[in-house]
Protein backbone atom coordinates (compact mmCIF):
# COMPACT_ATOMS: atom_id res chain seq x y z
CA UNK A 1 0.00 0.00 0.00
CA UNK A 2 1.30 3.40 -1.02
CA UNK A 3 1.11 5.66 2.01
CA UNK A 4 1.00 9.26 0.94
CA UNK A 5 1.42 11.99 3.45
CA UNK A 6 -2.23 12.89 3.22
CA UNK A 7 -3.32 9.37 3.79
CA UNK A 8 -0.93 9.20 6.67
CA UNK A 9 -2.58 12.25 8.22
CA UNK A 10 -5.97 10.68 7.79
CA UNK A 11 -4.83 7.49 9.43
CA UNK A 12 -3.52 9.52 12.32
CA UNK A 13 -6.74 11.47 12.59
CA UNK A 14 -8.75 8.28 12.68
CA UNK A 15 -6.38 6.99 15.27
CA UNK A 16 -7.03 10.02 17.43
CA UNK A 17 -10.75 9.60 17.12
CA UNK A 18 -10.49 5.89 17.78
CA UNK A 19 -8.30 6.27 20.78
CA UNK A 20 -10.78 8.71 22.22
CA UNK A 21 -13.63 6.36 21.66
CA UNK A 22 -11.63 3.84 23.60
CA UNK A 23 -11.72 6.27 26.48
CA UNK A 24 -15.47 6.07 26.56
CA UNK A 25 -16.92 9.47 26.95
CA UNK A 26 -13.99 10.87 28.85
CA UNK A 27 -14.05 13.73 26.44
CA UNK A 28 -14.30 17.46 27.11
CA UNK A 29 -17.42 19.49 26.51
CA UNK A 30 -17.14 21.68 23.43
CA UNK A 31 -15.88 25.12 24.22
CA UNK A 32 -17.78 28.09 22.88
CA UNK A 33 -16.11 29.50 19.82
CA UNK A 34 -17.61 32.60 18.25
CA UNK A 35 -16.24 35.42 16.15
CA UNK A 36 -15.84 38.78 17.78
CA UNK A 37 -19.03 40.75 17.30
CA UNK A 38 -18.99 43.38 14.57
CA UNK A 39 -18.13 46.42 16.58
CA UNK A 40 -19.86 49.04 14.46
CA UNK A 41 -23.30 47.54 14.31
CA UNK A 42 -25.27 50.39 15.85
CA UNK A 43 -22.74 53.19 15.76
CA UNK A 44 -23.40 56.43 13.89
CA UNK A 45 -21.82 56.88 10.47
CA UNK A 46 -20.66 60.31 9.27
CA UNK A 47 -19.09 61.02 5.89
CA UNK A 48 -15.96 63.09 5.72
CA UNK A 49 -12.85 63.65 3.64
CA UNK A 50 -9.34 62.67 4.64
CA UNK A 51 -7.45 65.80 5.74
CA UNK A 52 -3.99 64.68 4.69
CA UNK A 53 -2.95 64.70 1.05
CA UNK A 54 -4.78 66.03 -1.95
CA UNK A 55 -6.24 62.80 -3.22
CA UNK A 56 -9.25 63.72 -1.09
CA UNK A 57 -10.27 60.22 -0.11
CA UNK A 58 -13.75 59.74 1.21
CA UNK A 59 -13.90 58.39 4.73
CA UNK A 60 -16.59 57.04 6.99
CA UNK A 61 -16.36 57.99 10.63
CA UNK A 62 -18.16 55.80 13.12
CA UNK A 63 -19.08 57.26 16.43
CA UNK A 64 -20.38 56.01 19.67
CA UNK A 65 -24.06 56.40 20.25
CA UNK A 66 -26.93 57.65 18.15
CA UNK A 67 -26.60 61.37 18.85
CA UNK A 68 -29.32 61.26 21.44
CA UNK A 69 -29.23 64.05 23.96
CA UNK A 70 -27.54 62.21 26.77
CA UNK A 71 -24.85 60.54 24.73
CA UNK A 72 -21.59 62.22 24.03
CA UNK A 73 -20.43 61.23 20.55
CA UNK A 74 -16.92 59.94 20.23
CA UNK A 75 -15.42 58.70 17.03
CA UNK A 76 -14.44 55.10 17.56
CA UNK A 77 -13.47 54.01 14.09
CA UNK A 78 -12.62 55.46 10.69
CA UNK A 79 -12.39 53.68 7.38
CA UNK A 80 -12.61 54.38 3.67
CA UNK A 81 -15.83 55.32 1.92
CA UNK A 82 -16.50 52.62 -0.69
CA UNK A 83 -18.72 54.99 -2.69
CA UNK A 84 -15.95 57.47 -3.26
CA UNK A 85 -14.88 57.41 -6.90
CA UNK A 86 -11.17 57.91 -6.18
CA UNK A 87 -10.36 55.84 -3.16
CA UNK A 88 -13.26 53.37 -3.42
CA UNK A 89 -12.95 52.45 0.24
CA UNK A 90 -9.18 52.24 0.36
CA UNK A 91 -6.97 54.32 2.61
CA UNK A 92 -3.24 54.81 2.95
CA UNK A 93 -1.40 54.22 6.25
CA UNK A 94 -2.00 57.80 7.30
CA UNK A 95 -5.66 57.84 6.37
CA UNK A 96 -6.23 54.45 7.93
CA UNK A 97 -4.82 55.87 11.18
CA UNK A 98 -6.96 59.03 11.26
CA UNK A 99 -8.64 57.92 14.46
CA UNK A 100 -5.31 58.30 16.23
CA UNK A 101 -5.00 61.84 14.86
CA UNK A 102 -8.45 62.78 16.14
CA UNK A 103 -7.55 61.34 19.54
CA UNK A 104 -3.87 62.26 19.58
CA UNK A 105 -2.60 62.91 23.10
CA UNK A 106 -1.08 66.09 21.66
CA UNK A 107 -4.39 67.67 20.67
CA UNK A 108 -4.69 71.13 22.14
CA UNK A 109 -7.69 71.56 24.38
CA UNK A 110 -7.62 75.11 25.72
CA UNK A 111 -6.05 78.46 24.91
CA UNK A 112 -2.65 79.09 26.44
CA UNK A 113 -0.10 81.83 26.61
CA UNK A 114 3.62 81.82 27.08
CA UNK A 115 4.79 85.16 28.41
CA UNK A 116 8.08 86.77 27.28
CA UNK A 117 11.06 84.94 28.73
CA UNK A 118 8.78 82.34 30.25
CA UNK A 119 9.41 78.64 30.42
CA UNK A 120 5.88 77.34 30.51
CA UNK A 121 2.38 77.66 29.21
CA UNK A 122 -0.33 79.34 31.21
CA UNK A 123 -3.92 78.35 30.59
CA UNK A 124 -6.20 81.24 29.69
CA UNK A 125 -9.80 81.63 28.58
CA UNK A 126 -10.88 82.42 25.05
CA UNK A 127 -11.96 85.93 25.98
CA UNK A 128 -8.60 86.75 27.44
CA UNK A 129 -6.85 85.24 24.45
CA UNK A 130 -8.94 87.14 21.92
CA UNK A 131 -8.70 90.39 23.86
CA UNK A 132 -4.96 90.26 24.28
CA UNK A 133 -4.25 89.18 20.71
CA UNK A 134 -6.51 91.78 19.12
CA UNK A 135 -5.05 94.47 21.33
CA UNK A 136 -1.57 93.54 20.11
CA UNK A 137 -2.78 93.42 16.53
CA UNK A 138 -4.54 96.77 16.67
CA UNK A 139 -1.61 98.48 18.34
CA UNK A 140 0.74 97.13 15.72
CA UNK A 141 -1.58 97.95 12.84
CA UNK A 142 -2.29 101.46 14.05
CA UNK A 143 1.41 102.12 14.52
CA UNK A 144 2.68 100.62 11.30
CA UNK A 145 -0.12 100.75 8.73
CA UNK A 146 1.06 102.34 5.47
CA UNK A 147 -1.76 104.28 3.88
CA UNK A 148 0.44 106.09 1.41
CA UNK A 149 4.02 105.65 0.32
CA UNK A 150 6.53 108.45 0.59
CA UNK A 151 5.91 109.31 -3.05
CA UNK A 152 2.19 109.63 -2.44
CA UNK A 153 0.89 106.31 -3.77
CA UNK A 154 -2.13 104.90 -1.97
CA UNK A 155 -1.15 101.42 -0.86
CA UNK A 156 -3.13 100.72 2.36
CA UNK A 157 -1.01 97.85 3.58
CA UNK A 158 0.09 96.45 6.90
CA UNK A 159 3.46 94.72 6.69
CA UNK A 160 4.45 94.26 10.30
CA UNK A 161 2.12 91.41 11.11
CA UNK A 162 2.04 88.33 8.94
CA UNK A 163 -0.33 85.44 8.61
CA UNK A 164 0.06 81.83 7.55
CA UNK A 165 -3.14 80.03 6.62
CA UNK A 166 -3.72 76.32 6.85
CA UNK A 167 -4.11 74.44 3.64
CA UNK A 168 -5.81 71.66 5.51
CA UNK A 169 -8.63 73.84 6.70
CA UNK A 170 -11.83 74.05 4.72
CA UNK A 171 -12.54 76.39 1.85
CA UNK A 172 -14.99 78.17 4.09
CA UNK A 173 -12.38 78.74 6.80
CA UNK A 174 -9.91 79.78 4.13
CA UNK A 175 -12.36 82.17 2.56
CA UNK A 176 -13.28 83.91 5.79
CA UNK A 177 -9.61 84.03 6.77
CA UNK A 178 -8.73 85.67 3.46
CA UNK A 179 -11.49 88.24 3.87
CA UNK A 180 -10.33 89.23 7.34
CA UNK A 181 -6.64 89.23 6.50
CA UNK A 182 -7.05 91.43 3.42
CA UNK A 183 -9.50 93.73 5.17
CA UNK A 184 -6.77 94.34 7.70
CA UNK A 185 -4.42 95.15 4.82
CA UNK A 186 -1.96 92.32 5.33
CA UNK A 187 0.25 91.16 2.49
CA UNK A 188 2.61 88.90 4.43
CA UNK A 189 0.11 86.15 3.86
CA UNK A 190 0.71 82.64 2.57
CA UNK A 191 -0.34 79.06 2.92
CA UNK A 192 1.47 75.77 2.44
CA UNK A 193 1.19 76.13 -1.34
CA UNK A 194 4.24 78.34 -1.02
CA UNK A 195 6.39 75.50 0.18
Amino acid at each position, binding site marked *: MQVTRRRFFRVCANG*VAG*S*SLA*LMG*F*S*PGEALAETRHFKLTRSTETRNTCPYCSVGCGILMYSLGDRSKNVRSRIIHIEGDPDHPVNRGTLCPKGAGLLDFVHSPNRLTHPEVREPGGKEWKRIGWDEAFDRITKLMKDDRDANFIAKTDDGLTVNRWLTTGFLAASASSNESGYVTHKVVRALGMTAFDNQARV
Partner: protein
Amino acid sequence: MIRDPQDLRRYTASQRVNHWIVGMCFILLAFSGLAFFHPAFFPLAMLFGGGVWARILHPLIGVAMAVFFTLLALRFWRLNMMTATDLEWLKRAREMMDGDDHNMPIQGKYNGGQKALFWAVLVCVLVLFVSGLAIWREYFSALLPIGLVRFASLLHAVFASLMIALITVHVYAAIWVKGTIRAMWYGTVTRAWAKQHHAAWYREMTGRKS
Protein backbone atom coordinates in the same frame (compact mmCIF):
# COMPACT_ATOMS: atom_id res chain seq x y z
CA MET B 1 6.26 3.31 64.67
CA ILE B 2 7.86 -0.06 64.90
CA ARG B 3 5.33 -2.75 64.14
CA ASP B 4 7.53 -5.71 64.72
CA PRO B 5 11.07 -5.51 66.04
CA GLN B 6 11.98 -8.29 63.68
CA ASP B 7 11.13 -6.20 60.58
CA LEU B 8 13.91 -4.95 58.46
CA ARG B 9 14.37 -1.26 57.74
CA ARG B 10 14.40 -0.78 54.00
CA TYR B 11 14.05 3.01 53.68
CA THR B 12 14.76 5.90 56.00
CA ALA B 13 12.13 8.55 56.56
CA SER B 14 13.99 11.08 54.47
CA GLN B 15 14.32 8.61 51.61
CA ARG B 16 10.61 7.97 51.78
CA VAL B 17 9.75 11.64 51.83
CA ASN B 18 12.01 12.19 48.86
CA HIS B 19 10.41 9.34 46.99
CA TRP B 20 6.92 10.58 47.62
CA ILE B 21 7.74 14.12 46.62
CA VAL B 22 9.00 12.76 43.36
CA GLY B 23 5.97 10.53 43.17
CA MET B 24 3.54 13.37 43.71
CA CYS B 25 5.35 15.51 41.19
CA PHE B 26 5.10 12.67 38.76
CA ILE B 27 1.38 12.28 39.23
CA LEU B 28 0.77 16.00 38.83
CA LEU B 29 3.02 16.10 35.80
CA ALA B 30 1.43 13.06 34.27
CA PHE B 31 -2.06 14.44 34.73
CA SER B 32 -1.28 17.93 33.47
CA GLY B 33 0.97 16.57 30.74
CA LEU B 34 -1.67 14.17 29.53
CA ALA B 35 -4.10 17.08 29.43
CA PHE B 36 -1.88 18.81 26.87
CA PHE B 37 -1.11 15.60 25.06
CA HIS B 38 -4.48 14.28 24.12
CA PRO B 39 -7.82 16.06 24.12
CA ALA B 40 -9.38 13.08 25.87
CA PHE B 41 -7.30 13.91 28.91
CA PHE B 42 -7.88 17.66 28.78
CA PRO B 43 -10.41 17.58 31.64
CA LEU B 44 -7.51 16.57 33.87
CA ALA B 45 -6.47 20.19 33.55
CA MET B 46 -9.46 21.04 35.72
CA LEU B 47 -7.63 19.41 38.62
CA PHE B 48 -5.19 22.27 38.40
CA GLY B 49 -7.71 25.05 38.06
CA GLY B 50 -8.02 24.92 34.31
CA GLY B 51 -5.77 24.83 31.28
CA VAL B 52 -3.95 28.05 32.01
CA TRP B 53 -3.01 26.95 35.52
CA ALA B 54 -2.01 23.56 34.20
CA ARG B 55 0.24 25.30 31.66
CA ILE B 56 1.74 27.52 34.34
CA LEU B 57 2.24 24.72 36.90
CA HIS B 58 3.43 21.86 34.74
CA PRO B 59 6.92 23.20 34.00
CA LEU B 60 7.36 24.45 37.55
CA ILE B 61 6.47 21.04 38.93
CA GLY B 62 8.75 19.58 36.33
CA VAL B 63 11.66 21.56 37.68
CA ALA B 64 10.75 20.46 41.22
CA MET B 65 10.60 16.86 40.12
CA ALA B 66 13.96 17.15 38.39
CA VAL B 67 15.50 18.53 41.55
CA PHE B 68 14.03 15.90 43.87
CA PHE B 69 14.64 13.11 41.44
CA THR B 70 18.27 14.17 41.33
CA LEU B 71 18.44 13.90 45.11
CA LEU B 72 16.80 10.53 44.94
CA ALA B 73 19.18 9.35 42.28
CA LEU B 74 22.15 10.56 44.28
CA ARG B 75 20.92 8.47 47.18
CA PHE B 76 20.33 5.34 45.19
CA TRP B 77 22.50 5.25 42.10
CA ARG B 78 25.21 3.12 43.70
CA LEU B 79 22.68 0.53 44.77
CA ASN B 80 21.44 0.29 41.23
CA MET B 81 24.71 -0.58 39.56
CA MET B 82 24.09 -3.56 37.35
CA THR B 83 25.87 -6.80 38.08
CA ALA B 84 26.13 -10.10 36.23
CA THR B 85 23.50 -11.52 38.59
CA ASP B 86 21.14 -8.74 37.58
CA LEU B 87 21.55 -9.60 33.95
CA GLU B 88 20.88 -13.22 34.76
CA TRP B 89 17.78 -12.09 36.65
CA LEU B 90 16.61 -10.04 33.70
CA LYS B 91 17.05 -13.04 31.43
CA ARG B 92 14.79 -15.02 33.63
CA ALA B 93 12.35 -12.20 34.26
CA ARG B 94 9.71 -13.99 32.26
CA GLU B 95 9.67 -16.90 34.68
CA MET B 96 9.28 -14.39 37.44
CA MET B 97 6.34 -12.83 35.65
CA ASP B 98 4.77 -16.20 35.29
CA GLY B 99 4.89 -16.46 39.04
CA ASP B 100 7.76 -18.85 39.36
CA ASP B 101 10.71 -17.35 41.22
CA HIS B 102 12.37 -20.56 42.11
CA ASN B 103 15.05 -20.28 39.54
CA MET B 104 15.64 -16.58 39.98
CA PRO B 105 19.15 -15.66 41.02
CA ILE B 106 19.64 -14.42 44.54
CA GLN B 107 19.02 -10.68 44.67
CA GLY B 108 20.50 -7.87 46.69
CA LYS B 109 18.52 -4.85 47.80
CA TYR B 110 17.27 -4.43 44.26
CA ASN B 111 16.71 -6.94 41.56
CA GLY B 112 17.69 -6.52 37.93
CA GLY B 113 14.24 -5.30 36.99
CA GLN B 114 14.22 -2.62 39.60
CA LYS B 115 17.65 -1.48 38.56
CA ALA B 116 16.71 -1.42 34.92
CA LEU B 117 13.65 0.61 35.81
CA PHE B 118 15.77 3.00 37.84
CA TRP B 119 18.04 3.71 34.92
CA ALA B 120 15.19 3.90 32.49
CA VAL B 121 13.36 6.40 34.67
CA LEU B 122 16.55 8.36 35.13
CA VAL B 123 16.98 8.63 31.37
CA CYS B 124 13.33 9.63 31.01
CA VAL B 125 13.63 12.34 33.63
CA LEU B 126 16.76 13.67 32.02
CA VAL B 127 15.22 13.78 28.57
CA LEU B 128 11.95 15.19 29.86
CA PHE B 129 13.75 17.88 31.80
CA VAL B 130 15.88 19.04 28.90
CA SER B 131 13.16 18.80 26.30
CA GLY B 132 10.74 20.38 28.74
CA LEU B 133 12.95 23.42 29.06
CA ALA B 134 13.08 23.66 25.30
CA ILE B 135 9.32 23.76 24.99
CA TRP B 136 8.84 26.07 27.96
CA ARG B 137 7.49 28.92 25.82
CA GLU B 138 7.61 31.53 28.50
CA TYR B 139 11.36 31.48 28.90
CA PHE B 140 13.22 29.35 26.45
CA SER B 141 11.45 28.36 23.25
CA ALA B 142 11.88 31.69 21.52
CA LEU B 143 15.64 31.39 21.94
CA LEU B 144 15.86 28.08 20.13
CA PRO B 145 15.49 27.14 16.49
CA ILE B 146 11.97 26.06 15.75
CA GLY B 147 13.13 22.64 14.49
CA LEU B 148 14.68 21.93 17.85
CA VAL B 149 11.52 22.96 19.66
CA ARG B 150 9.48 20.66 17.46
CA PHE B 151 11.90 17.78 18.08
CA ALA B 152 11.80 18.52 21.80
CA SER B 153 8.01 18.49 21.75
CA LEU B 154 7.97 15.08 20.17
CA LEU B 155 10.67 13.77 22.45
CA HIS B 156 8.88 15.11 25.49
CA ALA B 157 5.68 13.36 24.50
CA VAL B 158 7.37 10.07 23.70
CA PHE B 159 9.46 9.96 26.87
CA ALA B 160 6.56 11.10 28.97
CA SER B 161 4.48 8.21 27.66
CA LEU B 162 7.35 5.88 28.23
CA MET B 163 7.82 7.13 31.73
CA ILE B 164 4.13 6.81 32.50
CA ALA B 165 4.33 3.22 31.30
CA LEU B 166 7.43 2.58 33.39
CA ILE B 167 5.89 4.06 36.47
CA THR B 168 2.75 2.05 35.85
CA VAL B 169 4.98 -1.04 35.87
CA HIS B 170 6.74 0.25 38.96
CA VAL B 171 3.48 0.80 40.77
CA TYR B 172 2.05 -2.48 39.59
CA ALA B 173 5.14 -4.34 40.72
CA ALA B 174 4.72 -2.83 44.14
CA ILE B 175 1.10 -3.90 44.22
CA TRP B 176 1.77 -7.32 42.77
CA VAL B 177 4.56 -8.17 45.12
CA LYS B 178 2.68 -8.25 48.36
CA GLY B 179 4.37 -6.63 51.30
CA THR B 180 6.28 -4.18 49.16
CA ILE B 181 4.32 -0.98 49.47
CA ARG B 182 4.84 -0.73 53.21
CA ALA B 183 8.54 -0.27 52.56
CA MET B 184 7.70 3.11 51.10
CA TRP B 185 4.88 3.82 53.55
CA TYR B 186 6.70 3.26 56.79
CA GLY B 187 10.12 2.04 55.82
CA THR B 188 10.17 -1.60 56.91
CA VAL B 189 9.55 -4.95 55.36
CA THR B 190 9.09 -8.31 56.94
CA ARG B 191 12.02 -10.63 57.14
CA ALA B 192 10.12 -13.18 55.11
CA TRP B 193 9.54 -10.65 52.36
CA ALA B 194 13.19 -9.79 52.30
CA LYS B 195 14.31 -13.34 52.27
CA GLN B 196 11.85 -14.22 49.56
CA HIS B 197 12.63 -11.40 47.19
CA HIS B 198 16.01 -10.05 48.12
CA ALA B 199 17.80 -12.90 49.81
CA ALA B 200 21.24 -11.37 49.48
CA TRP B 201 20.03 -8.15 51.06
CA TYR B 202 18.32 -10.23 53.75
CA ARG B 203 21.57 -11.90 54.59
CA GLU B 204 23.36 -8.61 54.59
CA MET B 205 20.78 -7.11 56.91
CA THR B 206 20.58 -10.09 59.28
CA GLY B 207 24.15 -11.27 59.07
CA ARG B 208 22.98 -14.76 58.21
CA LYS B 209 24.65 -16.97 55.68
CA SER B 210 21.68 -18.72 54.25
